[in-house]
């Protein structure tokens, strides 16, 4: 069984990478198997972990749960009904009903997470940008001072670039150009990290092929 598993994994890995040469039936087969298994896996996970474990056992607790003092939670039926309404999208005539649960989800999510985002992604970030340029008690090193300057200039010029109510000319335009350079450098750093990430995944598969499968790597 181990041998079969290794060969199957190698067959599918090579099938996926065969696309680098050109589109071919081997690639299509591997891709279809991957998509099919992924979809099947998620259906099973969603059913057992969400529908059964959370909804069904919540409304109809099993014997063991009842012995431990669990009681039916009928509020879950509201969620169940909303979930059912979501599926109405599959029937074109009454598909509009699906907007109700969707509106509930959008509204509830916005309400629940608005403060989280304001606190974590807005206020904390603004706070970390407002800093003593030379450090507390003028203790910052040259490198730290340069770093602080980069943050201040980068943030300010980046914000200026996205200020479209005034034409980007003169000193304002020059600041906006610094802003676009800051943004481009950020994109470059993100691209670099993305390359590293994708290479890591490729290294993992190559290690599998030459190491785990063929045993050629000592």
């Amino acid at each position, binding site marked *: 069984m181990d*041998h079969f598993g290794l*060969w199957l994994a*190698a067959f599918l890995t090579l099938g996926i990478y065969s696309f*680098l*040469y050109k589109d071919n039936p081997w690639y299509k087969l591997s891709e279809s198997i991957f998509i099919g298994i992924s979809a099947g896996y998620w259906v099973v*996970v*969603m059913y057992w*972990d*969400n529908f059964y*474990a*959370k909804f069904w056992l919540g409304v109809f607790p099993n014997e063991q749960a009842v012995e431990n003092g669990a009681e039916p939670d009928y509020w879950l039926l509201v969620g169940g009904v909303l979930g059912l309404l979501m599926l109405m999208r599959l029937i074109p005539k009454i598909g509009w009903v699906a907007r109700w649960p969707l509106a509930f989800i959008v509204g509830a999510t916005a309400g629940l*997470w608005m403060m*989280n*985002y304001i*606190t*974590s*992604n807005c206020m*904390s*970030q603004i*706070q*970390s940008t407002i800093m003593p340029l030379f450090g507390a008690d003028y203790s910052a090193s040259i490198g730290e001072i340069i770093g602080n300057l980069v*943050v201040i200039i980068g943030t300010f010029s980046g914000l200026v670039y996205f200020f479209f109510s005034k034409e980007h000319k003169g000193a304002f335009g020059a600041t906006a150009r610094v802003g676009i350079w800051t943004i481009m450098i*950020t994109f470059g*750093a*993100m691209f670099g*990290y*993305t*390359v*590293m*990430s994708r*290479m*890591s*995944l*490729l*290294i*993992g*598969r*190559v*290690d599998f092929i*030459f*190491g785990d*499968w*063929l*045993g*050629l*790597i*000592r």
Partner: protein
Amino acid sequence: MKTRMVEILVVILIAVLAVVAYLGKIWGWHEGFVFSTSVSLAVVILIFASLIWILVRTLMDKLVGRRIVFLYVGIAITLPLFMSIEQEIVISDEVQAIYDELEQLQPGSKVLVSLDYDPASAPELQPMAEAFFGECFKRDLKLIIMGLWPMGPQQANQAIDTIMARMGLDSTDVIYGEDYVNLGFQAGNEFVIQRMGSSFEAMFGTDYRGTPYQDLPLVRNVNNFSNIDFSYNISAGFPGTVEWVQIAVDRFGLRLAAGNTAVQAPTVYPYLRAGQLVGLMGGMSGGAEFEKLTHLEGKATTYMLSQSFSHIIVIGFIIIGNVAFFRSGRKSGLKE
């Protein structure tokens, strides 16, 4: 028709070589190969020389096809795995901060670890998990493991088995239920974190083996985040580090460090600078740095040479591509 025949022959040749290599592995004909340092250097020089040759060809308006680029990247990743060259790994402040934090914890401190990834991201993240678990075992820190991704807890079990084997530990040295527990996966994404703020048991009635929460000595007295001394999140996306910061850190005051895929790292760095994260391991290089700090060198360290080599190749082809682009601005009709 002729091309199709060649393609079929190449596939057959690869299949035959694979069968021979595989039989060699199981019947002991070979124990793997490793290039000596001089051969490794010769290979590196040869590859760079060929890159320069491609650059010269580009200057002569003869472009290479995309398959050549793929081939070079493949070679750049594969060959270093056979090389005996060691790469210098420089420790960054954000990785050092995680190590320092672990160093300050008293033996017996409780560390919450959430593994929010699946096998697709394992090459990047699994080494981080292994090294982190290993360091916690060394320092007698108690691990409470969970996952917001269905396969996270399985990845944790694999990481624990691997690191225990590497450190020569067995189940009597590190006892399940006392030294570590795996609470398993819980559906609900960020709402799980929010609920854990008031009650762990409400979210994890049993561990992944089905043992009731109250029967696990390690977590019996753990009610919520206030009973956790430190936490570490390994994440490949949503739900992951962002949600842990927003809820567990900013709302409940948990001390959190993170290990992320390189793709995700740039979005998480602002949290580090703002002090919402204690430390950060970004991508495979972050994992390699932590392995070096903990003296638990594993896959991340092994992979770093391939990583660096492939980056050089990518940079090389970016330069070659730009040369071709600027030349095509002056001349038209460049062909592969």
